[in-house]
């Protein structure tokens, strides 16, 4: 039925099957949209956030998807700036995933603020000292860049490509993509960093606060680094999942291994930096504020030292070792384990940097406050996942996302 739209030389599932799949994802999406509308019309009392948890699940989701979406800028950086040409075979997908992550982040932000209709005040009345202002500007600009990077892909759709104007537009855009990739990398460096700065600058919150250089706390650099390190892992992971679902090999192993190896070295160096940061924080920064390391990890029902071990050792050191070693990369199970751990790592990191910061009391006569999200928060957080699934499905079906697909699946 929709065969005219499907790229030449590839096989796609029957329309009814596709419709069913989209329908299922669409139902989840609608559930999320319903929750979103509740939040907009009834207000944020629909959430389980409170005056102790001004930031909660949503901000974590924002930080996490942006970290994971970092695959787009870093792969682009490697492809266009460093010149790792093989990566052209995965860059489309990296861009798409990045686009989904960033648009989701913006949507979640629009739900998260108490006065969505005044959201643009962040640009109009911008306070240049605020990390959030930096985040908003860079995020929006980079989202623009990602859109520009994504548009040529859309234009490659068989039918659209037939229009000469769009054909030429697409071609010309490809020509200058390096410029945008460079811009994207530059913007990403700042907003990933400023997201790290969000809790790093909170000198009233010793759990999040880090010293740094000029206006930038160390978390500024750690966040950028970890996004660059783990973002590609997320791209690979999603590619692997897509391959699993479609039952096809879509990207050549050497491409994946190259990206995985770079990722491994990035994670390795990141985790060394993170360990140094943690050590300095535990030994110098926190004690200056009157805290021992263990004060941050005791007297509460959830946040034990295990979370630090999980983040640094299990989800940092372990995947780094696997990905750096050739044997590890070549072993499918080990590679998969490493990818999953490398994705969980920054998620845990963003979680503690948002939620544990909120949970921990600073006043001596205050208590730890635990939080669990309301269904509205969960639904609006799953909303982008459903939206991502739909966009990936549509893109995969109608756009030539994977340049190697035809070659790898010749029977089609």
């Amino acid at each position, binding site marked *: 039925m929709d065969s005219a739209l499907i790229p030449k030389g590839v096989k796609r599932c029957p329309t009814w099957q596709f419709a069913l799949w989209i329908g299922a994802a669409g139902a989840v999406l609608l559930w999320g949209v319903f929750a979103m509308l509740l939040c907009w019309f009834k*207000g*944020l*009392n629909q959430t389980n*956030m*409170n*005056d*102790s*948890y*001004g*930031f909660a699940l949503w901000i974590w989701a924002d930080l996490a998807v942006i970290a994971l979406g970092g695959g787009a800028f870093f792969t682009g950086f490697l492809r266009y700036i460093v010149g790792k040409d093989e990566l052209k075979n995965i860059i489309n997908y990296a861009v798409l995933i990045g686009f989904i992550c960033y648009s989701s982040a913006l949507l979640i932000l629009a739900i*998260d*603020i*108490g*006065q*969505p209709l*005044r*959201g643009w*005040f*962040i640009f*109009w*009345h*911008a*306070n240049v*000292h*605020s*990390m*959030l*202002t930096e985040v*908003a500007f860079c995020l929006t600009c980079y989202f623009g860049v990602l859109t520009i990077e994504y548009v040529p892909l859309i234009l490659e759709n068989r039918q659209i490509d037939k229009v000469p104007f769009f054909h030429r537009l697409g071609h010309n855009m490809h020509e200058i993509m390096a410029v945008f990739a460079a811009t994207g990398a530059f913007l990403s460096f700042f907003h990933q960093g400023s997201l790290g700065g*969000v*809790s790093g*600058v*909170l*000198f*009233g*919150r*010793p759990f999040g606060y880090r010293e740094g250089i000029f206006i930038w706390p160390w978390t500024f650099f750690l966040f950028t680094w970890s996004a660059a390190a783990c973002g590609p892992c997320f791209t690979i992971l999603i590619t692997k999942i897509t391959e699993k679902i479609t039952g096809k090999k879509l990207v050549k192993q050497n491409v994946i291994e190259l990206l995985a190896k770079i990722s491994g070295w990035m994670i390795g160096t990141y985790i060394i930096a993170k360990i140094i940061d943690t050590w300095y924080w535990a030994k110098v920064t926190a*004690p*200056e*504020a*009157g*805290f*021992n390391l263990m*004060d941050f990890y005791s007297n509460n029902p959830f946040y034990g030292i295990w979370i630090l071990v999980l983040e640094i050792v299990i989800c940092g050191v372990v995947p780094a070792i696997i990905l750096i070693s050739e044997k590890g990369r070549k072993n499918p199970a080990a590679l998969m384990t490493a990818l999953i751990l490398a994705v969980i790592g920054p998620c845990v990191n963003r979680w503690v940097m948002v939620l544990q*910061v*909120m949970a921990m009391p*600073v*006043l*001596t*006569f*205050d208590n730890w*406050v635990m939080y669990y999200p309301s269904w509205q928060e969960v639904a609006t957080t799953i909303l982008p996942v459903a939206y991502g699934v739909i966009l990936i499905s549509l893109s995969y079906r109608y756009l030539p996302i994977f340049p190697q697909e035809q070659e790898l699946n010749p029977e089609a």
Partner: protein
Amino acid sequence: MKEEQNHEKAKRFGMVIDLDKCTGCGACMVACMSENNVPFKEDESKKLDSITWLRVYKLTNGKPFPDAEICYLPRPCQHCGGKGDHGHSPCVSVCPATATDYSNDTGIVSQIYTRCFGCRYCMAACPYHARYFNWWDPVWPDGMEKYLSPNVSVRMRGIVEKCSFCFHRYQIAMEKAHYEGRGELEENEYQTACTQACPANAITFGDLNNPGHAVHELKKDKNAFRLLERLQTNTKVYYISSREWVRRAGDNYLEKEKK
């Protein structure tokens, strides 16, 4: 003349709260709510979404019966000056929309309700929990909105609010002073609602920079302390307690720093 006034030394309004006198009666909290049109809901026992610009904390010394002790500690916004008193309060520096600001003339941290878009970053930044979000639309029972004061605008849902040191009272007092051709206020012309109401006279309010104001000397009391001084928030609310454990409860200390 006018020039001179403008060049006069900047003010730093602040409080000294004598915890030895404070009885925890709660009059300051209610005076604040009543002065500042603070809304209320049917259930205010969920303290994490209960707007109390000034909240009285109950501190205990942690010892068992019969050595247990209690001390009450009223906590308004601390109006932090930040490191070096340059106005880089934890909250002001993070607000993305300049909806909260530090006044170098008065040392007061303001909040512009119509500009705040409710991102709550300032709440995350404040270690004193002095900032409150309007999770709900403010609703008064039919007829009760009659007591709302026009001096303080009613806040809409979805924004952050906090103690302003009753800044509207400063404005009204200044207007009156200007009208009478004065550039300066007398100490008693500008007092916050909580200071005025406190039955124990535990709260003293004034210009910390002005040697003529009571707070100027009181803050130097040997038993005076501030909350979380180690974080260099540089607050303008001082507390006095003759009890060692209460003074130590004002900040975090490492094991080895005990005594």
